[in-house]
């Protein structure tokens, strides 16, 4: 996997979280998975098509997801991740993916992102792609986020 397609997602995550006032984000863990599989409470997945095919999965514990949505809603407490909350979380991930694709380098990027699907549930087991996957965990005052990048080329 070419690092030039990884860094834009990391920068995008820092940038978007920064826009919502979360500036204490640090990379806390880096691992490689043989398949893009996740087991978190909440996962938002976007596909990539075009010159680069693959999937990007943003995984959150429930508390982190609620904290993100709260930040997006100007600090309003979020007790439950309802339909509006899920939509906000999906938009958060869409912003990161869009931000990353814009950094891929060409004026007319041949890569497109698909609309995100948000999957919620306990004991969910998900295989996203049978490709080598880079999993990067980020820690901050709002909790942990795992960014999974599984690209086919």
């Amino acid at each position, binding site marked *: 996997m070419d690092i030039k397609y990884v860094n834009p997602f990391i920068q995008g995550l820092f940038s978007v979280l920064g826009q919502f006032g979360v500036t204490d984000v640090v990379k806390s863990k880096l691992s490689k998975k043989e398949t893009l599989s996740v087991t978190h409470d909440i996962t938002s997945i976007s596909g990539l098509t*075009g010159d680069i095919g*693959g*999937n990007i999965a943003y995984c959150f514990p429930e508390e982190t997801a609620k904290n993100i949505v709260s930040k997006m809603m100007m600090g309003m407490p979020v007790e439950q991740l309802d339909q509006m909350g899920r939509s906000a979380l999906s938009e958060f991930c869409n912003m990161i993916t869009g931000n990353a694709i814009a950094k891929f380098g060409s004026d007319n990027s041949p890569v*497109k992102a698909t*609309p995100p699907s948000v999957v*919620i549930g306990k004991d*969910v*087991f998900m295989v*996203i792609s049978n490709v080598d996957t880079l999993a990067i965990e980020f820690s901050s005052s709002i909790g942990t986020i795992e960014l999974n990048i599984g690209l086919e080329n």
Partner: protein
Amino acid sequence: MTTQSLVLYQKYRRGGMDTNDFEVFHNNVVKVFDEFLEMKALIQGDISEEKEDLISLGISSIISFTGKTSGRVMLDMDPELALYVANHLTGENFTDLKDPLVLASVSELNNMVAGNSVVDLNNNKELDLWLAPPIVMTGTNMIIALPKLKSFSYLFDTGKGKIRYNIAFKGGGGS
């Protein structure tokens, strides 16, 4: 086309894809289950619009797409049907839904349905659709949310379990 389908067609025909195009997905579900599993997938009722987030039947495979419209298709099925599919395709006797080959079997079925359908749509409607790699998942009470997408489902019964084939896409000028 039934009255309900016609109403949905008229409502969403301006979105790049319309419910008339969905018949190709219906046809390919029936064809793939017939050809690869020797199983009749019988449609239950008419296509229906989903107003709420979906609760998975047990195991689901999602393939998203971009092009003149973007969205995703989902093959969702009962756990017992997924095990039957995997056992039929591999000749093994799986009992665990999380087994990689069970997940891969469901994913591959959706790959065939979505792949065939997109080829048909690109050839006949020039939608220029590109597919992302499939995702497959299982869990209890799993909610699949698709914010800002119009979502429609076909329901099938196979005799070994139920199938839901859901098509969701951006746009739809009717709303």
